[in-house]
């Protein structure tokens, strides 16, 4: 297979993720998918904005009562940094340095797991401290659905990264595996893009009013 041909740093092409037709198709198809995901998250944001603080009775917790900015700040830093580390991974991919790429992807996964841990703690905290559950009000449903969809994307993104790392550990980089790494990292960046709006629109604006 020409796609599994062996390369050296000298023969490695400039945009290896798009060097084959298959890679080109995947690259474009994945970007289109991200376009669809943008609309999907916009719909969730719209719902959240429309239902923010809509609770059946005054004893339910509102956005202002719930959110704790220090935790959100830590989560944001974890995810932003993980975005940079996956950029590093792709930098080494372009330089045909497989080992360093795997290393930076591993760091990305660890940071992502840290983020996920914080989110689980956060949901658990709301549940026990404020009795803020998925079913308690329209506000809580909208909150958990928006943030939970993002969390599910994080879980899926992490599983994907781990899967491509393990599957290709022995095989190394070639024009067949390069698009796989590239798309997984693109997905990871998109998760970060969504988080930028979540921390701004949900948490920060929730505190302002």
């Amino acid at each position, binding site marked *: 297979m*020409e796609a599994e041909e062996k390369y050296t*740093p*000298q*023969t490695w*092409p*400039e*945009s*290896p993720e*798009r*060097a*084959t*037709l298959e890679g080109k198709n995947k*690259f*474009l198809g994945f*970007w*289109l998918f*991200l*376009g*669809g995901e*943008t*609309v999907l*998250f*916009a*719909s969730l*944001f*719209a*719902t959240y*904005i*429309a239902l923010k603080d809509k609770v059946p009775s005054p004893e339910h917790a509102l956005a202002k009562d719930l959110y704790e*900015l220090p935790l959100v*700040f830590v989560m*944001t*830093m974890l995810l*932003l940094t993980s*975005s*940079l580390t996956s*950029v*590093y991974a792709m*930098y080494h991919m*372009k*330089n045909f340095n497989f080992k360093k790429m795997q290393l930076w992807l591993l760091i990305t996964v660890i940071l992502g797991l840290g983020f996920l841990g914080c989110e689980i703690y956060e949901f658990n905290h709301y549940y026990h401290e404020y009795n803020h559950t998925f079913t308690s009000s329209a506000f809580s449903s909208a909150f958990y659905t928006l943030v939970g969809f993002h969390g599910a994307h994080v879980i899926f993104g992490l599983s994907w990264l781990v899967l491509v790392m393990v599957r290709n550990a022995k095989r190394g980089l070639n*024009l067949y595996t390069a698009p796989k790494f590239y798309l997984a990292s*693109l997905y990871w*960046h*998109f998760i*970060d*893009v969504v988080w*930028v*709006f979540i*921390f*701004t*629109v949900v948490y*920060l*604006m929730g*505190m*302002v*009013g």
Partner: protein
Amino acid sequence: MVNNQSNSSNPRLDYEYRRKKNAEGMRIQVATFTLMIFFTVVSFVAVGANFSKWFVIPFILLLAVVQVGFQLYYFMHMSEKGHEAPSMFFWSAITVAFVTVLAFMTIIWW
């Protein structure tokens, strides 16, 4: 569909040029990252500092938009060539997303 993208006849030169270009690109990425962290800190400080919400909300939204632009154009490489179709579709998606959110902010009020 085999790749023959070398820009010069001398593969060695081409290789070194690309190395340099990638390293240069990475420096820009790190600078972008620093700015993103800075914007994030500023947003959190702006909210923590109890300014008027008529200032804070537009301000942090603006910072978020700029930050996402950095993500898209640098981290996700949308500024590089070969991203014409992706950026056209992504901007269409943003248009639809914007209209949706705008509608939910303005005509759902009870």
